[in-house]
């Protein structure tokens, strides 16, 4: 600062000059700040678009799957040689042969074991499962002929989706020239095409990509979150109400408050270890169960819900409490009739944030065994199951090309879940919001 500007202005004109001299600098600073802000937002939006773009471009193809149309003859000689329609025999019969026979019928010229093996591998090994289901459900089908769609093998699926190059040398692709020829024939007969992938939504996990679905993980996530919500919402809101409205302010409550804040920052895998030691080793609850997962996630979400609920309760104007107390409402009535309803939007936001975090949590669930390979779709909270983020983690680790798109597909399902939850939060908020 030079000597003239450090002198305090004496007259109004001098003051005006001084103000004018600084104006340009002040506006420049403001413009600079705005530019920083716009840059930061652009940067963030670009990343989000990139993320969603890659996930969707990779995952959308998981919604379609190659299906093969076969004319199947339910040959009584093969599936029911004894002829007594015994359900146990029908369960374990050789349906694979039926699929193979139908493929042989379509390509009668193919001969020799290696060539036939190549032909058979166009259909998924899961194709026979569909046949088995149909026959056990309706044994009258035996001896009849039927035309139906079954899953094609995942290499065929990849080929139809253009992920196996026709021009690559034969020994470098997973389909032989003969197989490609057969695929072309089937396609021209409209007996092989990409259809909506129902298996992805109706099946549990599988080692075969074409059979693997998210149903098991979705149901597992749902059951786990249900337990989490049922436990953490009432406990969290109850704790917040007690601490905020009833507890005396003393050293003990200060200590509890500090600890709750610290718990919110504890890495989630630590809670997983705690869950393993407490719920599984000590209480003997089953491994990999949504019940245990829900208990662990409850521990993780509780601090978030308590902190958010306390903030929401604190934001309710004291005048409302005084109004209720002033006409003789008890403290409990004051809280239940007035304070809690007004705090509800904030409480719900906290709960949804906590639940969203729980939905995306995978590390602690690995510790309690929800990482196991589970084919069956869980039917209860004690059945072994996995959850969506863990399913993503599992699939991302597998070498088959088919699992790459399924990984992204599972991420899309996970994101849809989150969007639905957030939409629910917005709806609930606006429902509870009261204008002053």
């Amino acid at each position, binding site marked *: 600062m030079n000597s003239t500007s450090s002198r305090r202005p004496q007259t109004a004109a001098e003051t005006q000059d001084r103000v004018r001299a600084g104006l340009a600098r002040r506006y420049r600073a403001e413009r600079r700040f705005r530019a920083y802000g716009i840059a930061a937002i652009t940067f963030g939006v670009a990343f989000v678009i990139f993320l969603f773009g890659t996930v969707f471009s990779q995952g959308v193809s998981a919604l379609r799957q190659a299906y093969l149309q076969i004319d199947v003859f339910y040959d009584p000689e093969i599936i029911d040689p004894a002829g007594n329609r015994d359900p146990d025999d029908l369960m374990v019969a050789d349906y694979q042969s039926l699929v193979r026979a139908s493929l042989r019928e379509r390509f009668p010229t193919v001969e020799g074991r290696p060539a036939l093996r190549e032909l058979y591998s166009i259909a998924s090994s899961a194709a026979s499962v569909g046949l088995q289901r149909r026959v056990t459900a309706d044994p009258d089908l035996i001896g009849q002929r039927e035309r139906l769609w079954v899953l094609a093998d995942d290499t065929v699926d990849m080929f139809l989706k253009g992920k196996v190059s026709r021009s690559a040398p034969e020994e470098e692709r997973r389909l032989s020239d003969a197989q490609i020829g057969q695929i072309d024939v089937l396609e021209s007969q409209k007996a092989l095409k990409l259809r909506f992938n129902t298996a992805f939504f109706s099946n549990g996990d599988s080692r075969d990509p074409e059979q693997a679905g998210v149903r098991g993980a979705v149901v597992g996530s749902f059951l786990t979150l249900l337990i989490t919500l049922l436990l953490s919402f009432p406990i969290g809101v109850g704790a917040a109400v007690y601490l905020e409205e009833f507890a005396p302010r003393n050293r003990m409550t200060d200590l509890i408050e500090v600890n709750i804040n610290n718990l919110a920052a504890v890495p989630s895998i630590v809670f997983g270890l705690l869950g393993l030691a407490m719920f599984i080793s000590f209480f003997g609850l089953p491994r990999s169960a949504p019940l245990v997962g829900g208990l662990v996630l409850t521990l993780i979400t509780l601090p978030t819900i308590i902190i958010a609920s306390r903030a929401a309760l604190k934001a309710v104007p004291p005048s409302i409490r005084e*109004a209720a107390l002033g006409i003789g409402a008890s403290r409990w009535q004051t809280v239940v009739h007035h304070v809690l309803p007004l705090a509800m939007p904030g409480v719900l936001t906290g709960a949804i944030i906590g639940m969203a975090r729980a939905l995306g949590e995978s590390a602690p669930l690995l510790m309690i065994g929800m990482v196991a390979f589970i084919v069956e779709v869980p039917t209860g909270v004690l059945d072994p199951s996995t959850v969506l983020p863990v399913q993503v983690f599992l699939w991302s680790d597998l070498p088959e090309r088919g699992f790459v798109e399924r990984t992204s597909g599972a991420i899309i399902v996970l994101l849809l879940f989150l969007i639905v939850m957030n939409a629910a939060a917005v709806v609930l908020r606006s429902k509870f919001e009261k204008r002053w």
Partner: protein
Amino acid sequence: MPENRPSPPIAGSSRTIGSVTTDNPVFACRDVNVHYGDKHAIKHVDIDVGRSEVLAMIGPSGCGKSTFLRCLNRMNDTIESARVTGSIMLDGQDIHDRKQDVVQLRARVGMVFQKPNPFPKSIYENVAYGPRIHGLAADRGELDEIVNTSLRRAGLWEEVKDRLNHPGTSLSGGQQQRLCIARTIAVNPDVILMDEPCSALDPIATARIEDLIDELRESYAICIVTHSMQQAARVSQRTAYFHLGDLIEVGETKKIFTNPQAKLTEDYITGRFG
């Protein structure tokens, strides 16, 4: 009406000038002290509140008049650091006695606050809330009756009768304050405490509230804290002047404003400070 109960004696050390006692008081406060942590906010206050009278409490900001008012329905209980000592007798029963339930006390001693604070519910629900939690109405018809009467007595009925299900917060400031008064009288209190009820209102709304106070005086004892000396002069029969936690002077309003005995009172009402 309870039997005539003489005013309890006052300790000889009282420094308050004027007539602290009344005949057959509703409230008889003796040697009331309030501490906020280390701060001694109310010092050895003795005062009676008579039936069917309006007692105005005046004094400069921070003199403790609101604090004292809040002692009368134990509203200070909600402030963690506040400690109230001394005896406050409501019809001969100490309100700090273990036998006195605080919920019952507050139903009997209603309060109207500085800023209108209707519940963010309908006008009807605002008035009906008190009777409902205390179980005063047997059925919907009785509840309607209570709401109707309370709103009429608060002079609000004509303005809101067609929109009882509108939110209470949609009313103007003055209407909101009358709604709060209706809400208070809906539970049939003996005493109504008013903590600067007009400080957030315009002069017309203020005039309506003052008229209302005058009408309500016939049925209720009213204690009003006010910063406006004109208001105290207009609505009250007795006036108490507080200064820095001391009750300096109590007397008939006319006497206090025309012929104050204490130097501090005189300085305040003549506008030398405050």
